[in-house]
């Protein structure tokens, strides 16, 4: 927790509209975040209330948008159970946080871009570069996106199982059917997904398998 205090201090230094305001001894950062574009100036402004779950820094902080610019509905990527923002599909968040995330990095690379996306959504009616579907569907889309084109749901299951069981070697033929060795073909994708860790992949695999059976 000593590190968290330091991180918050330097973040407030950089974003002076934020302040630390602990509630019932829960570490809380609140205030405004301005979206600034060097050519345009101030694009927009959002108010936030940020808390840190026990799993932090191995998961994102919890962010509530308190200026009420974003409707509190699932299709606007709000977890309606607690009104926090859904900032990334689960495996993506897991990958970003695998070595622990830093608060300033989180604001710069995750939160501010997310709010820019929301402002664009407000003006244009759609998100730039698309969005993932809700729930398990979004999870399918994420894995299918990572894998070579023409991957279907069964392939996703097979490949996740291969990673979890170490069932494919570098010199085996690639799973994509190219007849090249894996190390010369799609090894990099498996390496990336393997960073998620076996226990995490098993969790996603179970969810996907159950979904496929229904």
């Amino acid at each position, binding site marked *: 927790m000593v590190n968290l205090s330091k991180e918050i201090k330097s973040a407030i230094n950089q974003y002076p509209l934020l302040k630390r305001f602990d509630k019932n001894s829960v570490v809380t950062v609140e205030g405004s975040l301005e979206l600034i574009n060097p050519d345009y100036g101030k694009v927009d402004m959002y108010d936030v209330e940020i808390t840190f779950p026990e799993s932090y820094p191995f998961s994102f902080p919890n962010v509530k948008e308190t200026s009420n610019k974003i409707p509190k509905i699932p299709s606007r990527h709000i977890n309606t159970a607690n009104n926090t923002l859904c900032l990334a599909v689960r495996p993506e968040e897991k990958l970003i946080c695998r070595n622990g995330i830093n608060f300033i990095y989180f604001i710069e*690379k995750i939160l501010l871009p997310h709010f820019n996306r929301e402002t664009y959504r407000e003006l244009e009616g759609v998100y730039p570069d698309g969005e993932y579907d809700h729930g398990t569907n979004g999870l399918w889309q994420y894995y299918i996106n990572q894998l070579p084109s023409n991957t279907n749901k069964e392939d996703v299951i097979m490949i996740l199982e291969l990673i979890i069981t170490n069932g494919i070697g570098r010199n085996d033929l690639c799973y994509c059917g190219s007849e090249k060795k894996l190390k010369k073909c799609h090894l990099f994708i498996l390496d990336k997904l393997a960073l998620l860790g076996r226990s995490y992949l098993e969790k996603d695999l179970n969810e996907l398998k159950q979904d496929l059976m229904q």
Partner: protein
Amino acid sequence: MEQNNVNITHFSVGNGNCSLIEDTDFVMIIDLNKTEDSDSSYDLLKPYFRKKDGKDCIDILCITHGDEDHCLDFKKFKEEIDADRLIVGSIWHQGFDRNVNEDKDDLPEDYLELRKEIERREDIDDPEFGDIVEQPKSEKTEDDLFEEVDKPDDFEVRILSPFDGDDENSDYDHNDLSIVMKLVFHNKTVLYAGDSSSKYWQDKIIPDLLDKTETEDYANAEVLVGSHHGSYTFFGDNRDDVREADPESDNYEALNRIGADDLIISAKDKFPASKDKSGDEPPHYAAYKWYHKWFRENKSVKEDDKHPKCFQYTSDGNIRLEYRNDEWKWVDGWNCENDDNSNNEARKAAALVGARLGVVKKPWSIG
């Protein structure tokens, strides 16, 4: 840091008023009226509403008094509020009903809709943003006025008129008792005179200003939005008297108190610069004579300069002040449609750049 959304706009609405105050997260509208190109005041103003909870939002709607040329098309606003598509944080109004002297049948429909909305709000016990109704009075503090409304930085409102207790039962009519207010916005001072009359200035406003000795500049404003579309009523009850009086007119004192650099006349036409051309409807030559005299004596306007640059007419088009890089600038020939589109496109492009700086490419909802 460049600011992009701080603007004060007076729309070209003929003999009426419609002004818009914008900050990034704040929209205030003073009076409703439409331009020639727009179908209604609602259509004119809709592009400037901000968003809150996915709905359109105006933080404050101030109706200086209930005449049709100040609340035109409120019916449409009421429909949108009732359909839960529009949030009007707080409505400011004069605070009386115009029942006493006028037949209900003669009251404009838009005013009756406004009254309905005010009554709806007044019935709510503990109103929140969206249900607030406020009667600005000279005696009130900013805390009263901005209940539940997030006031932008560097924004201040002073109510000069009306005063507590003056309503339809008093000697004044609803024009006399227009809401008169001074805005201070990033150091720019603008005084909205509504349709206020000489009578009320003489009886109440000026004596009150004289009492405020500790704040000599209380009514000082760089920009005066002239009363009643340039009508003689700002200078006296009787038009002939105002026109012929020489050299003192009742409300010269008000102009001294305000000390404006610019005068905005929200009217269908420019001031008639000679007695012969003045019709029944404002703007009136009788008023022009006094305004011109005051600006000649105080602001180095030349006698032969019939329409000096500091007389700005909405009949020439929308009048706009923009705050950029810590400075206010007048924008000539500003056109709302162009501005809205190009500004939105640029803002969208800027948001897209910001979005793509992220490491997460697409949002997802666990639903």
